[in-house]
């Protein structure tokens, strides 16, 4: 068996000393799609930000190809793409200029590749319009266009379908399916029902937070 790409061992997260979930074990191989579920406030965003390396308050281990991410951070960062609640788009710049910057940071895509990506993300003809003039969904699409450019193996997407219309959701699902079938891994949170082949669902309610009961604390 090949090593799992991403492995979580006994992962527990907390915010401001308040535990969210505990002892999450998960091992994701290439070709998988994992949907993180849970009611509002259960810690989905916290988990995804932790995986992206943005939150560093956790207990347990995150392994990348069998190695702790802290040790292989450089390699790991080459291989992840994170899109969070805030899309990371400069509204004074055009979609093309925004993507050009991202690709200079990560994928070194050509200008043609960027235009193609924008077209495929449902924004043909909007390459040169300042992003301030786009609607909520269009703005989100600019951010998601990075998926077409990226060569990262792990996509970490926090509620990617926010503000996206129905046909957009279908396209996005197809894109994710093709990514997994190429050996990629998708981790996403969403409250919607998804129609992805081989989708695994992880409900954070199954890993309830260990409230620090007085007696436990004593032993700790």
């Amino acid at each position, binding site marked *: 068996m090949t090593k799992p790409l991403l492995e979580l061992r006994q992962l527990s997260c907390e915010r401001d000393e308040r535990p969210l979930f505990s002892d999450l074990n998960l091992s994701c191989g290439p070709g998988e799609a994992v949907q993180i579920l849970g009611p509002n406030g259960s810690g989905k965003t916290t988990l995804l930000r932790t995986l992206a390396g*943005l939150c560093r308050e956790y207990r347990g281990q995150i392994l990348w190809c069998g190695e702790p991410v802290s040790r292989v951070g450089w390699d790991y960062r080459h291989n992840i793409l*994170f899109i969070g609640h805030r899309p990371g788009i400069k509204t*004074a710049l055009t979609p093309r*200029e925004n993507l050009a910057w991202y690709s*200079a*940071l990560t994928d070194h895509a050509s200008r043609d590749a960027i235009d193609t990506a924008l077209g495929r993300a449902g924004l043909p003809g909007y390459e040169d319009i300042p992003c301030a003039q786009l609607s909520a969904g269009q703005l989100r699409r600019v951010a998601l266009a990075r998926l077409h450019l990226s*060569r990262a*193996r792990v996509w970490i997407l926090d509620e990617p379908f926010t503000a996206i219309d129905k046909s957009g959701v279908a396209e996005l699902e197809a894109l994710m399916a093709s990514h997994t079938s190429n050996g990629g891994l998708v981790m996403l949170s969403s409250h919607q029902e998804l129609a992805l082949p081989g989708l695994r669902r992880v409900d954070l309610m199954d890993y309830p937070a260990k409230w620090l009961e007085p007696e436990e604390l004593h032993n700790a």
Partner: protein
Amino acid sequence: MPDALAAQTPRPVFAAFLATLRRDLLLAVRLPGDMANPLVFYLIAITLIPLSLGPEREVLAPLAPGVLWVMALLATLLSLDGLFRSDFDDGSLEQLLISPQLLYFSVLAKVLAHWLVTGLPVTLLAPVLGMMLALPSEGYWALCLSLLLGTACMSLVGAMGAALTVSLRRGGLLLSLIVMPLYIPILIFGADVVQNAVLGDPIRFQLAVLGAFVTLAVALAPLAVAGALRISVDAT
């Protein structure tokens, strides 16, 4: 498996450095108000001085070196808040942090862009304002030179404060509080260069100190900024 998905060999950091620099300058061009603003603040703040102290040349001339420096400092200070704020608000700061690039160079690019659109224009405007405050003509070169070094240093040092406060709403004035103590040595040496030049005293030593500050700041400040940014983003 997936050669399409194979990890990249890291490209020269220079490409990312240039891309970030270009993006920030482009933003300054797109929002030209932002670029002109520290300049305009400088202009107006200097204008207020005669209005409150009186228009007599004999009153103004001795104050000119100090006032020109203090106001340049305040102009830089006030422009700092925008340095990382918008990147933080729209989420591109997170992206910068998790990108496979040396944060040192990305930060350096951002600070350089900041200096090019604030410190440099302020330096170039200073002689004109010196004229308005009746600065004796011996002071002009010293003013420009000291501001050139001083504003670079202030951009670098100020970036640390900006990074620390970026996750706080209305960080602007808290930022002043954090950064001003760090600016005091720069101010003392900078104002002294101009004062001495006006009086005909040597200014070599003060300029050398300013130069040393800049060197030190270039080497260390981006590292501190990078750390501070990580903390700020973590606190979201």
